[in-house]
């Protein structure tokens, strides 16, 4: 059975005619060609499929696309619309927060969603959040450092902005 639905992904609206059993991650990859979001386990364990749903990190393999009609979906492609790495991606690169890169889109969206909600996390809190997703290569330490560094840079930029607006 085919169903009509409308999904908003990275600010763009898409009309789709798909089977209701399509999970969000399958729609992103197969119907919208957004292959940045990866698929590992399809049962919520690995986090490779992590995207933002209304700003909150979520497993795209455990959501039917039909359920998130009307929600704002963001994928890793939204981080660098012009093709340039954003600050978070830049930090991953500088700290060697990736090797094979399979987990990276999920790690990035996990961090993006988390930092938006919690701009001043402790290292321990970052470690706890990073434990949500699996990485077989890095040993996690460099990912934690990348997120920590990005958070401090964002805080510094914010302070600068505040100082600037006071003058």
């Amino acid at each position: 059975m085919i169903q009509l639905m409308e999904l908003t992904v990275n600010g763009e609206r898409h009309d789709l005619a798909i089977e209701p059993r399509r999970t969000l991650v399958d729609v992103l990859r197969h119907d919208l060609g957004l292959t940045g979001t990866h698929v590992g386990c399809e049962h919520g364990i690995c986090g490779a499929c992590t995207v933002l749903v209304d700003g909150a990190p979520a497993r795209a393999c455990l959501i039917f696309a039909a359920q998130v009609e009307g929600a704002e979906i963001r994928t890793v492609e939204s981080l660098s619309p012009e093709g340039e790495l954003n600050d978070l991606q830049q930090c991953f690169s500088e700290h060697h927060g990736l090797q094979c890169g399979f987990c990276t889109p999920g790690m990035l969206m996990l961090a993006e969603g988390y930092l938006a909600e919690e701009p001043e996390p402790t290292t321990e809190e970052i470690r706890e959040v990073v434990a949500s997703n699996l990485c077989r290569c890095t040993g996690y330490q460099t990912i934690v450092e990348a997120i920590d560094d990005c958070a401090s840079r964002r805080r510094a930029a914010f302070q600068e902005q505040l100082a600037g607006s006071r003058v």
Partner: protein
Amino acid sequence: MKPAAFEYHRARSVAGAVGLLTELGDDAKVVAGGQSLVAMMNFRLARPEHLVDITHIDGLSGIRREGDTLRIGALTTHRAVEKAELGDFGVLSRAMRWVGHLPIRTRGTVGGSIAHADATAEWCLLAVLLEARIVAEGPAGRREIPAGEFFLGPFTTALEPDELIVELVFPRPAPRAALTEYADRKGDFALVAAAVDLDADRVVLGGVGPTPVSADCPSSGTSHSRPPVSWADAVAGSLELRDEPGISAHYRRGLVRTLVERACEEASCGC
């Protein structure tokens, strides 16, 4: 794997959802956060022919304090409870850090956890510990089921197939309660979980039976008394445990003793 084909129905009201469940019968299943059901469907351990999506029903999520009572809507996410300031119901927020990981908690719901009825699920333990009432609506209207009578076996509850959980009601504050647990990896379902309420003289355990297991304990006296460390030995000693593949009865009993002791300490300091 990919789930088997099904027909999707979006409910807009509780009555609408109950109507769909009644009409579609045994072939229909409710989907809320999907954090248990979609995983089971992807494995084809579940293959419902009809899915009734309740996530678009207004008014089913939120936390309300009414005097000594706390009411939590079925669609409230674990994350929303974790972030809420619940005062003398703070044990609920603190327990949420044990439920899976952040991206699971942003989607998974209180009602879904109770309906799923995993014997180690934090919500099931908390409901039994704090004598919550589960409010369910079916074709005949609403009824309240005491948590102590709700969990019948592994993944089996007193809920009828055409009933929807709409709310959880916690009847009294629990300023001296705590939940703690152990799993080999953080975020996994617990091997053993222990929840204690010092004011109710009660311990509830997960991972030692097919449903949450309650144990009444000798009174701990006034709120000024020291944490009842003796509970740990009494509870651990009273359990009938068997060796299972990968985990001996001896090891599990040791976990129970340690976790009850730890939960008592946390409950007495409210941390």
